[in-house]
């Protein structure tokens, strides 16, 4: 037998979450479902959107090599950005973690702060630094003798990767940082007392333990880079399209909404598959760390 009080406490969580649930079903799930539906509709220059069920858009994406090239570029940029942030961000997080209290929080603020500064402003900064063949970055690299002739950064994938890596770097540092907090500093001393050299300690003690942090950071960076819009649009210009900028073009310039919806649906599906899949892989591989 249940008392009135018990019944009320069984109902309470649903009463409390009902408004938010209704909001999410009404304004998130329904619009998303409508977008998937839209990708099966027909469109013509003069007739507009026709609510029929056809595979035209999906067939176009599957057969036209333009889309293969564009998705290839999108994921190539995302992978390179992820590698760059991992290779530079993980050591930086390690160095930060070894600093003393005041410097640690100061530099953490400097490195993580940009996360909250407008992406448009940050990318604009890179556009200024790249600025043609005699931009500041090229001048610096040449004066240090690192390169002979200027590297084109604006309107190239190289420039997009550099700027995106800067935008995404805080996520990687943060993720590795979180993994480092779980690490017992005494283990390092123990290895040292047993005669391990610094490089051996990093390779055999530190690396295996922060790997889950690097990998979960990589998933975040990858999925955000693959769907990035502002940076590819500003650095890549009008010709070098990625998935997000192409969808934008279809929606606001060409006005072929069904095709744009198909591109967006495919991007969402690919990302969900990759993120869920690699999360499962990481959790199985590092089950003992997450326990």
């Amino acid at each position, binding site marked *: 037998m249940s008392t009135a009080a018990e019944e009320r406490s069984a109902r309470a969580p649903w009463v409390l979450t009902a408004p938010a649930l209704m909001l999410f079903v009404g304004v998130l799930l329904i619009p998303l479902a409508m977008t998937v539906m839209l990708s099966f509709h027909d469109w013509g220059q003069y007739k507009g959107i026709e609510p029929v069920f056809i595979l035209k858009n999906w067939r176009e994406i599957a057969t036209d090599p333009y889309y293969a090239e564009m998705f290839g570029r999108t994921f190539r940029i995302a992978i390179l950005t992820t590698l760059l942030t991992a290779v530079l961000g993980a050591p930086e997080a390690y160095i930060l973690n070894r600093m003393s209290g005041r410097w640690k929080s100061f530099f953490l603020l400097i490195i993580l702060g940009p996360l909250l500064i407008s992406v448009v402003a940050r990318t604009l*900064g890179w556009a200024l630094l790249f600025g043609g063949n005699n931009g500041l970055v090229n001048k610096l690299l040449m004066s240090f003798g690192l390169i002979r002739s200027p590297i084109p950064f604006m309107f190239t994938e190289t420039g997009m990767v550099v700027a995106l890596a800067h935008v995404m770097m805080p996520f990687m540092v943060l993720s590795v940082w979180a993994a480092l907090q779980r690490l017992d500093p005494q283990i390092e001393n123990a290895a040292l007392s047993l005669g391990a050299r610094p490089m051996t300690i990093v390779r055999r003690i530190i690396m295996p333990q922060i790997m889950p942090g690097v990998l979960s950071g990589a998933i975040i960076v990858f999925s955000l880079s693959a769907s990035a819009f502002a940076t590819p649009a500003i650095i890549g210009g009008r010709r070098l399209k990625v998935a997000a900028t192409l969808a934008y073009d279809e929606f606001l310039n060409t006005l072929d909404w069904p095709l744009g919806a198909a591109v967006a649906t495919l991007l969402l599906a690919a990302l969900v598959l990759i993120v869920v899949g690699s999360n499962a892989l990481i959790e199985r591989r590092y089950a003992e760390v997450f326990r």
Partner: protein
Amino acid sequence: MRRNGPLALIFHTIFVIVMVAPILVVCLVAFTPEGYLSLPTNGFSLRWFRTIANYPEFIHAFWVSLGLGALSSFVALLFAVPAALAIARYRFRGRDALAALFLSPLMIPHVVLGIAFLRFFTSAGMGGSFAALIIAHVIIVFPFALRLTLAAAIGMDLSVEMAAVSLGAGGWTLFRRVTLPLILPGVISGWALAFIQSFDDLTMTVFLAAPGTETLPVRMFLYIQDNIDPLVTSVSACVIAITMTALILLDRFYGLDRVLAGKGDTGR
């Protein structure tokens, strides 16, 4: 623990310089007296900050952004606070699924959200309206509002509430006089983080904004697409200054590492 060696410190110095350089460059160029982009710049002038006054669309966009951020973060909290209390206190079937649904806007690319909302609000006859922008922003800032409120609700001492109940408080009074004051730091930080997210969003908003409801990032983006000149750098410098102020307040009030640690989980 061992100290950092000289090589590590050199790496660290270069890393920090590269992280700060683009933001610094924007702020430096904003003070150029020249009529074109020049780097390095010589001289110092507020010319381009004064020029902003001649572009009412930037000023209007600023007010749109400010109102949109403040309002949508507030509305998000109206929904998020009860939901956070339910998730923090009750174990019920569907609890994990609900939490995942409420955090899902973090995982869905903003391009996809922009497209979905554009389609939805256009068919509802609300395309380009300020109301549509508010609803869309409520959804994208909801996870941030929920997370910080949830952290506060989980850390709350329930015995205080029980004491109030034993003294005869209940319902609305209990919430207003006991529960809300106790979780208020989390709620305010949630509002601030939600505000920053809304204030900075470009990718989703660029699909929804129409002339008149353009936000500052959208206005800046559309301007940069046509030409990059010192004007956008002075506008950017203002945006950076506003965000920095909010950041420092957030750090003093709540601790930036805690706020950002919540953000780092985006992909999980």
